[in-house]
């Protein structure tokens, strides 16, 4: 846990130091109803948002259904005596495959990402790992 605390603090410092946000010009609070109403995006105006939402829903559902119980599966089905030590290695191996895929995603995002109205492909690609 201390390791994660250290990583969190180091990364926070890096982000705060090197990322400059534009001068704050937040929207004005106009009441509870407009506030919660702002969560609704019209599907006709933002169809790509809903495509990304759906793909994220299914990809995350698949990932976490498996991840949450992988430790018990390794222990009880595979018969691994010390699954807490093996699981990070297993997850790391799988994620290593995602790195070249992500690099491909970066390249495709460079190629297609700047086309107005055609930002769906890079979003799907970056979700693919």
């Amino acid at each position, binding site marked *: *846990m*201390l390791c*994660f*605390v250290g*990583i*969190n*603090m*180091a*990364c*926070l410092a*890096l*982000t*705060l*130091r*090197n*990322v*400059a*946000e*534009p001068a*704050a*010009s*937040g*929207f004005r*609070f106009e009441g509870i109803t407009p*506030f919660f109403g702002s*969560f609704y995006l019209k599907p006709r105006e933002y169809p790509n948002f809903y495509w990304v939402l759906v793909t994220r829903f299914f990809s995350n559902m698949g990932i*976490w259904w498996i*991840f*949450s*119980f*992988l*430790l*018990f599966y390794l222990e009880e089905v595979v018969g691994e005596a010390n699954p*807490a030590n093996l*699981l*990070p290695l297993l*997850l*790391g*191996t*799988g*994620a*290593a495959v*995602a*790195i070249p895929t*992500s*690099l491909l*995603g*970066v390249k*495709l*995002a*460079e190629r*297609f*990402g*700047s086309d107005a109205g055609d*930002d769906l492909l*890079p*979003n799907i*690609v*970056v979700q693919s*790992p």
Partner: protein
Amino acid sequence: MRERSPIVSYLSLGALWFALQAQWTTVVPVIVPDQITAMIGETASKEGITGSVIAAGSVIALLIPPFAGALSDMTRATGGRRRPYLVTGVLGTCLGLLSLVTFELGSSIVLYALAFINLQFWWNWAAGPYAGLIPDAVAEQKRAIATGWMNLLGAWARS
């Protein structure tokens, strides 16, 4: 973004994503099931309890990001409207992580669930506004590549 190497800028922009992904892909699949087993022993209900604790946290994860994100949209702060949420969210996450360390054999599952919900709250308190940082800090034509770098850091964190 300030004038500096684009790679440094993209890495800095995605650094927190690296931290949060590294933490989360260890806490949920490894630490929570392992701690619950340590707390209640090898019982038949440990999978159900683990699933319930994680599901309780997921409810928070469903509600907080849009709420915190919308609040950050309306925030006026020196240095940027996302920054207060990143700072408080990461500090809260660190305290939440440390609180999980205190649980051991015989500890209350209810308290553990609350500690996990607390961790989820702070993580998502930062993550919602963090998702808005790219549109705020990156020019429109560079957003896709910035997102790609962010995902690359996430994949690296998981490995």
